[in-house]
């Protein structure tokens, strides 16, 4: 609680962190109220599939029917970006949660027991970290087939090892504390010591750091969808909407920016979403890292 107050105090002093928080909250509201902001048309089954207005290829400019216009294939851009916010949160939250669980289990086992178990787990993380992340994620996504689940699994596969390593390092540091030995001394089991003493004393900063990686996770997912590897066609996803726009960056001879909305609008959504998390992350990192805070 004292830590929380300390955090809040420093947080309020920094205008950038407030800006980050506001951006993230606005996006959260958009995600929550998506069915009200952009209602699913009657008779449309899956709300995550963007409704189409015909099948003409050429994008149509903003109009009263489609306030952000339509992109290639007449997908409604407004509906796509609003429901895409839900997709982004879904991917970000689930991936980070899964990564944390895997990282916590493997990292704490490795750090607490040490020895051969530690060696094996760390060599496995080495193997996963031996690939440029996007390349491994691409291979995993196509191996599993195009779906939002594949994208999430692919990103979990490339993210968990670094978490396992950081958590292991923190646990190693905590393990040497006297209270751990005391707990073992009075006969506590390994599981009890890990759950009751080691984890609560080492993961508090990791939780915050992890939640702030949501921006980076969403960016990777969007990149996969942009490359045409992620979600199925027509799924409400920012990356895919930019993929739809790539054939329309050069306008008509009379108006070179004729299709500006197709690329600009979904791009701004990704940009602000990621920036919101980064601003929040930056300020919290400064506060949490005491070496930086003193400056």
């Amino acid at each position, binding site marked *: 609680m004292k830590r929380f107050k300390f955090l809040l105090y420093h947080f309020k002093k920094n205008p950038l962190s407030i800006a980050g928080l506001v951006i993230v909250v606005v996006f959260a509201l958009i995600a929550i109220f998506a069915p009200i902001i952009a209602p699913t048309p009657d008779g449309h089954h899956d709300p995550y599939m963007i409704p189409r207005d015909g099948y003409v290829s050429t994008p149509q400019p903003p109009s009263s029917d489609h306030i952000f216009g339509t992109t290639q294939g007449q997908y409604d851009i407004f509906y796509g970006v609003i429901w895409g916010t839900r997709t982004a949160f879904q991917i970000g939250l689930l991936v980070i949660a899964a990564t944390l669980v895997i990282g916590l289990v493997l990292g704490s086992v490795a750090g607490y027991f040490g020895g051969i178990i530690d060696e094996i787990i760390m060599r*496995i993380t080495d193997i996963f970290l031996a690939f440029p992340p996007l390349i491994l994620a691409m291979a995993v996504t196509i191996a599993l087939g195009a779906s939002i689940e594949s994208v999430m699994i692919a990103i979990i596969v490339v993210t968990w090892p670094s978490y396992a390593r950081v958590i292991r390092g923190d646990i190693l540091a905590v393990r040497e504390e006297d209270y751990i030995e005391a707990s073992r001394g009075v006969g506590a089991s390994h599981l009890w010591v890990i759950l009751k003493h080691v984890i609560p004393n080492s993961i508090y900063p990791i939780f915050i750091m992890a939640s702030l990686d949501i921006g980076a996770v969403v960016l990777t997912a969007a990149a996969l969808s942009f490359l045409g590897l992620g979600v199925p066609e027509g799924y409400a996803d920012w990356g895919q909407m930019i993929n739809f726009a790539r054939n329309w960056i050069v306008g008509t001879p009379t108006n070179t920016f004729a299709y500006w909305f197709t690329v600009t609008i979904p791009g701004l959504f990704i940009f602000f979403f990621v920036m919101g998390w980064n601003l929040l992350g930056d300020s919290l990192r400064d506060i949490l890292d005491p070496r930086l805070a003193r400056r």
Partner: protein
Amino acid sequence: MEFRSYLIRRLLLLIPVLFGVTILIFGLLQLFPAYQRAMLYVTDPRQLNNIDEIIQMYGLNEPLWKQYFTWLGQVFSGNLGWSKVVGMSVTDAIFNFLPATLELAIFATPIIIIGGIWLGTKSAAHKDGPVDHISRAGAIVGWSLPTFWFGLVLLMIFYGYFTGLFPPERLSTDISVIVHSGEFTRYTKLNFLDGILNWEWSVVFDALRHIVLPVITLSVVNIAFIMRLMRSSMLESLGRGYILTARAKGLPEKTVINKHARRNAMIPVLTVSGYLFAAIVNGVVITESIFNYKGLGWWAWRTAINLDVSSILGFALFSGVLFVLTNLVVDLLYAKFDPRVRLGGSIK
């Protein structure tokens, strides 16, 4: 620890990692049906009509461990399979597309490193001044930019609005004809360098014109990354006692910043060069796919969307091994120049 024994230890550690990398790739391969897996053993387009024969010949229905060693044998003999997207063997494709990507990296890497270090130094030296605020804001924007969107916006402006100023692809059609003609010798396959060597300035100019936007796209995010790292490292360095000493003995501020502070602050930046390598490979796939710039990244993208299993796994294996070796070289250089690293006995 002696440098020699450190070196031996690191080389020994390399074996299980490389072994594990092949197991991971092989594991991914098992998620594909046999007829797709067979592509990894094809060496000649004529074999494509007899996929069943290949499945029989390489025992793709046999127990996994047997298959693994058959495959590993193939990999060691340099056969990574057939890339159906470009109609050549995967090994040939890698060597064919490597120069284009190398050309991109040759321009982007120095810009990223020098730009990032310079901005980071400036920002830290003028902490909380206007320069610092502007470059920090720039870094946050750069760090949050989706590369793929940024590239498209650049194209929209510099190819669409300023018609054809900086076009996509590697060369214009007329210049491409010159490059592929008999009189033009392709010494390195790096277009701008071959242009200079052939004394053909139109080629040099055209190659540069095509590479400007990809280089900017690839650099912006990474400059932001290096700049942030350099800034905080520089601030730490500036708070040290030797800076106070240097200032106390009356050295000019420029010398203090550039010699005493910056040289020490650059160490953490060097240690992330392995990470930078991975970031550039990631960025290359996205950048080359935006600009239709036919290099390794473009090929990896085309093969991935066409489910060309042998190519994408071959590329993953290639980039994985290259990444492991890059990290090894970085660590060795670091240990060579900073004895503290190896005195610890292990690297964490």
